[in-house]
């Protein structure tokens, strides 16, 4: 693999559109079992994503390599394919930090807690509630970091 810049090609795809596609030095991903960082030359990997931030380091459009830029997206649920020179993220939902609607996320958190309390014996309801809570908390955390 004679890539001159040792850069990853990162794509972030949502059901609605391809949100992001360019070169990067490293990507942080919120896998279900914890955050991981992918650099150029990583082993091929498939993972399910949880709720959290995707952070793309370096290599903004037009100026590969040199830039110290960092792009962050809040994603919730999805999948990622890692190849040595390519990372493709399939996210159910992806937002830029400034796009997060904080009151709505708070409402979502309340709803999640309510569902959690009402779940009773149903494992499925618990899982659903936990998902809602995790998503809302990740959104709020992303939004809070911005300020």
């Amino acid at each position, binding site marked *: 693999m004679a890539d001159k810049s040792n850069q990853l090609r990162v794509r972030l*795809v*949502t059901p609605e*559109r*391809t949100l992001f596609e360019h070169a990067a030095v490293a990507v942080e991903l919120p896998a279900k079992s914890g955050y991981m960082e992918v650099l150029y030359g990583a082993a*091929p990997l498939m993972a*399910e994503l949880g709720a959290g931030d995707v952070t793309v380091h370096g290599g903004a459009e037009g100026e590969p390599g040199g830039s110290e830029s960092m792009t962050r997206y809040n994603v919730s649920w999805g*999948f990622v*394919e890692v190849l040595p020179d390519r990372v*493709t993220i399939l996210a159910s939902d992806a937002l830029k930090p400034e796009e997060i609607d904080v009151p709505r996320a708070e409402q979502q958190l309340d709803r999640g807690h309510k569902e959690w309390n009402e779940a*009773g014996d149903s494992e499925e309801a618990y899982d659903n509630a936990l998902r809602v809570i995790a998503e809302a908390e990740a959104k709020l955390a992303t939004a809070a970091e911005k300020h």
Partner: protein
Amino acid sequence: MANVLDLRRRIRSVKNTRQITKAMKMVSAAKLRRAQERALAARPYAKMITSVLESLTRRIDIFDPETGNLRHPLFATRPEKRVLLIVVSGDKGFAGAFNANILKTAFQFIGGNPDKQIDIEAVGRKGRDQMRRHYPSAINQEQTDDNGHTVKIRDRKAPVEVTGDHPGMLLKLENSRVFELAQSVISRYVHEEIDAAYIVYNEFKSVIQQRLVVEKLLPLLKIGIPQITGAVEPTEEERERAAEAALSAGILLEPVDTAAADEEAKKFGTAEVDYIYEEPAEELFNGLLPQYVSSMLYHAMTESVAAEHAARMTAMDSATNNASDMIDSLTLLMNRVRQAAITKEIIEIVSGAAALQ
């Protein structure tokens, strides 16, 4: 005979109508263009989900050795006794026969399965109104079971019932809402409340390549191949009309070539390497399936929205043409009436002059 003033007023009124229909046509054309772009933008995700699922089915051992079927509840086929029908219609009228055709297909489907219990989920306001008029809504009774939890029990009164509607879903098509619908369909299927799920919608590849289809969503048989159980093609005449309207509004007739992008998307999850799976492959597969079902629904809805705008554009183009024809014939009539009046006056003057001599 009508007088000139009346005719002039009439012409002015038809001209105003023509202005409105022309404007509506242009608005629909713009909306169609946007809907087509959205459908195009949604393609990579759908393709990627499909290709990764396909490759996972080849790689992992999720087949039941006894039946040879995939070991997942969404692949389990049961005799179809209870069927869910999702009807995707338009939110607004003035779109020619668009809504009527969808409803006709839906009613044919219901009529063709008289011995089954059918639940209807209506997407789009026009379809919901019609379905509500014909069939009762499903009633869920809340009961308290032995452990003190409230359980919803379905109290079925009629063979065909409307279980839900989704007003405004098409107006602002958001994946999260479509996903909720997909999840509700999946959970009903997994809990064996339904034995199959169908969707009726207007497929739209381009203005001249569209048809009404009944597609089977669940159970899944093979990933990536839509199970179309019925399709109504438009007549040649309808297609010509649509093509004419599209040309005058500057809409491309041929679908945009997506082969390169599709190829690119197909590579997702299918590289010839041994992946490390963070989660067991089976878990990944199970997590991807709801997304797949949701992307099928989303696809159906984006196409239906595009088709609705195309139908409205065609209808409004016809209306504009009809108005122009009407103005022409009224103008001709008006001129004739005016000429007749002038001729009559000349005759009167001439005969009056002749009488004086």
